[in-house]
């Protein structure tokens, strides 16, 4: 009983602390930083999607950090759950009485997976033009792989390929950032995409190295999320 009381008191205190935000902070025009991004983004970097310009180049350091977070989480989850490889052996799905994937799921997954992968690649290739980008593309690819896993749990994933893709795309991402640093000669343009031509706004080959960077991010995120799902699934039914 005492715990319930303390809990309600804690939630009430939290609400009281959040109240100034709800009361005082109403709707407002985008600040001058936002207008700066909206005007200079398309002009300087040639990207149609201003959010992508912020995520990839202006605040690219955040995204690099974010990819590292996912990378560390994957390493952590892998370390925690995948250790059971040498565990008590992988029982066949049938022995564990797991229901076999239904016919519909099998055929649908064979049909859908490639389409989904294509859709994912499309998303992170057009990150700078249309909504979506590296993360969303990567996740779609991960869901494509997920459907494959659900349909046929025994189809072991090519761990080697996944690790290589993850490692190389990460390394390439950092390398591109470093190239931005030395190539443009600007004071410290780490992750500055302008070493490639900006091209014409709206076309696929535009906005300098942003599409390439975002694609690498897409590959890496896709590989990592697949890694997490694979580790989670490991010897589940």
């Amino acid at each position, binding site marked *: 009983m005492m715990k319930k009381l303390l809990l309600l008191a804690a939630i009430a205190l939290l609400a009281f602390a959040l109240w100034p935000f709800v009361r005082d902070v109403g709707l407002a025009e985008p600040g001058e930083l936002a207008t700066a991004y909206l005007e200079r983004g398309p002009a300087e970097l040639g990207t149609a*999607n201003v959010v992508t310009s912020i995520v990839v180049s202006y605040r690219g350091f955040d995204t690099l950090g974010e990819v590292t977070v996912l990378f560390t989480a994957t390493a952590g989850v892998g370390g925690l759950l995948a250790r059971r490889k040498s565990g008590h052996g992988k029982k066949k799905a049938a022995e564990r009485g797991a229901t076999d994937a239904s016919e519909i799921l099998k055929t649908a997954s064979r049909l859908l997976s490639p389409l989904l992968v294509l859709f994912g690649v499309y998303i992170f290739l057009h990150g700078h033009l249309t*909504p979506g*980008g590296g993360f*969303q593309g990567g996740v779609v690819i991960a869901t494509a792989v*997920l459907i494959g896993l659900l349909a046929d749990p025994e189809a072991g994933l090519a761990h080697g390929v996944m690790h290589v893709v993850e490692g190389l795309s990460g390394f390439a991402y950092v390398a591109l950032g470093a190239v931005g640093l030395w190539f443009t000669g600007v004071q410290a343009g780490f992750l500055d995409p302008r070493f490639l031509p900006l091209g014409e706004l709206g076309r696929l080959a535009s906005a300098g190295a942003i599409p390439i960077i975002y694609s690498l991010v897409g590959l890496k995120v896709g590989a990592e999320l697949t890694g997490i799902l694979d580790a*989670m*699934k490991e010897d*589940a039914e």
Partner: protein
Amino acid sequence: MLDGRTTLDLVIGFLGLLMIFAAIWSVLSKRLLSSVLLSGAVSLLASLVFLAVGAPDVAMTEAAIGSALTTMVFLYSLSRMKAEQDAHEDGGAS
């Protein structure tokens, strides 16, 4: 009353109410599976709100990661937990 601005508020308000209701239901429900699925529903509704607010990137991410992947990860860990439980009950290998 129904100029562009307030209809958006109404839509968002409705979606918001739905979300809060789903969240409360998820917290209070007895069965684990329903609370997990309901939290997925909350994320799905959230992506709709993000769309309404004019943040398509965020909507896609929330839909894909928030509702799809998070729910999948929850379900996988639920099944792993049950597998551990069975392993314990029948004196399994672990």
